[in-house]
């Protein structure tokens, strides 16, 4: 068997293993939907109706309904929390010794990191995709194009965010410590991502943080896909976005930034995995 095929198989079996774990624990998928439901129905619904009368609305005078605004934000929220956290499976493998079984194999560490990241990313991507089911109940009109564009975007975002977790796992040997620290990463990422409020008019000190936050581009990309496909004018959408050097991101720019971000972090993670103590 040639080397490329061999290593592809290795990445695939690592991926498949995570999917098997997910499938054997599929009740978790349903439980995982309760958080997004709370945010959409209670927080989103409550905010939307209390803001509907005011002229200076939450959506920066764009005229976009808050529920439409927060829907992609809640998908991003689910991805931010699940994706970084899903790297926990690698810490678990370390703790229970299974990682040794992987590390003594004659396989490049980059293959291991990619396989693990794909596995962890896909479980959170599936979780994020499931949120689309909730759309009709809150008045977000899904079109076929929107779904076809959103799903790959969700997978890319999941992969980019998982790669943060994959870099982090190198520094942790036990699950508790990892879980504790993850909260200090994903909470600020979530609040600074524009999932809940538009980033166009944030205070000056917050501005650089927003622009450096990979989750901001994730939210922006998904939000643009959802809103463009509901024929909302681009000017209105830009009011909900943020500009970097006076340029508003487009879906393609968001994708580009997320791809570069993933490649850089996966490379760092592979280098860290390659160290022998």
């Amino acid at each position, binding site marked *: 068997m040639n080397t490329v095929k061999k290593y592809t198989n290795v990445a695939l*079996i690592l991926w498949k*293993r995570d999917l098997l774990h997910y499938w*054997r624990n599929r009740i978790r998928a349903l439980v995982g939907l309760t958080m997004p439901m709370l945010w959409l129905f209670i927080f989103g619904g409550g905010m939307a109706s209390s803001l509907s009368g005011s002229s200076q609305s939450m959506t920066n005078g764009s005229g976009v309904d808050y529920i439409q605004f927060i829907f992609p934000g809640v998908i991003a929220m689910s991805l931010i929390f699940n994706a970084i956290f899903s790297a926990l499976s690698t810490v678990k493998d370390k703790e229970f010794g*299974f990682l*040794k079984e992987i590390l*003594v*194999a*004659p396989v490049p560490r980059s293959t291991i990191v990619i396989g693990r990241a794909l596995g962890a990313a896909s479980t959170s991507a599936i979780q994020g995709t499931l949120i689309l089911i909730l759309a009709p109940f809150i008045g977000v009109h899904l079109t076929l194009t929107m779904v076809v564009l959103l799903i790959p975007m969700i997978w890319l975002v999941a992969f980019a965010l998982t790669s943060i977790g994959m870099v982090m796992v190198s520094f942790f040997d036990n699950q508790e410590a990892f879980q504790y620290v993850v909260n200090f990463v994903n909470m600020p990422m979530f609040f600074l991502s524009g999932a809940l409020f538009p980033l166009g008019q944030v205070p000056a000190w917050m501005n650089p943080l927003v622009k450096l936050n990979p989750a901001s581009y994730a939210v922006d990309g998904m939000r643009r896909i959802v809103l463009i496909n509901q024929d909302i004018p681009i000017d209105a959408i830009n009011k909900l976005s943020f500009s970097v050097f006076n340029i508003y991101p487009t879906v393609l720019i968001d994708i580009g930034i997320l791809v570069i971000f993933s490649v850089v972090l996966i490379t760092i993670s592979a280098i860290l995995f390659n160290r022998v103590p």
Partner: protein
Amino acid sequence: MSTIQVENLSRTFKIKGKNAKILKAVDGISFSVNPGELFGFLGPNGAGKSVTISMLTTLLNPTGGSAKVAGHDIIKERDEVRKKVGIIFQDTTLDIKLTAYENLNFHGTLYGMSKEQRKEQITHLLKMVELDDRAHSVVEQFSGGMKRRLEIARGLMHFPEVLFLDEPTLGLDPQTREHIWQYINKVRREHKMTIFLTTHYLDEVENCDRIAIIDSGKIIDLDTPAKLKDKYNVPTMNQVFLEATGHGIRDDELSGENRQRSQRPTGPAH
């Protein structure tokens, strides 16, 4: 040519905190293992047995000395070494959420085996360790002994030249220990494999061709069980150990049996 060639191998660890010091886990050991030999590393907990295995299997870098396994340098030719060794770790490293079959299939894929090769080898090995009827059961439901048997099968999956067994019978009841030994001997007969084994069970080392007695990171003596008993002029390995090191293999325990009862069935970490 020796299958394992170890030259002045050392590993130190920095202990941080209040009692900061440098711990010499393995302290300049040298030995060689011949092809097809069953070589035993006998020593108490903390003697440096697992650290040695970790170094010889590329999971840990030595801080001094060098070693070759199956003709390849453990630092410079890691991937070559990895291809040629099979390891059964001290603690279970199975994926308990997967079935026995899936665990072996995963392993075979990691080692680049083709689909047909994997299928054939899994069928053969599961039969050998008498788990063929449980091939599609999730490992979570297995007893400690069954898990060990599955790990032995997994260690053999990719036709390694050298098999490393780190305390293969730790935490198992005497009957299961006996059973595991039957498999190890069968593997030797059928596969003519070089086996490197660590243990602190004195009765088990009688099975070995040669034994290295290791204590506090140093090899105290090395020979066949019979010659060691002759040398110290004592009838049992227990006494050999006592004579060679000046203390019992575990001063805090009376017999292997007592130890069994105080342990968790799956083999705890040390």
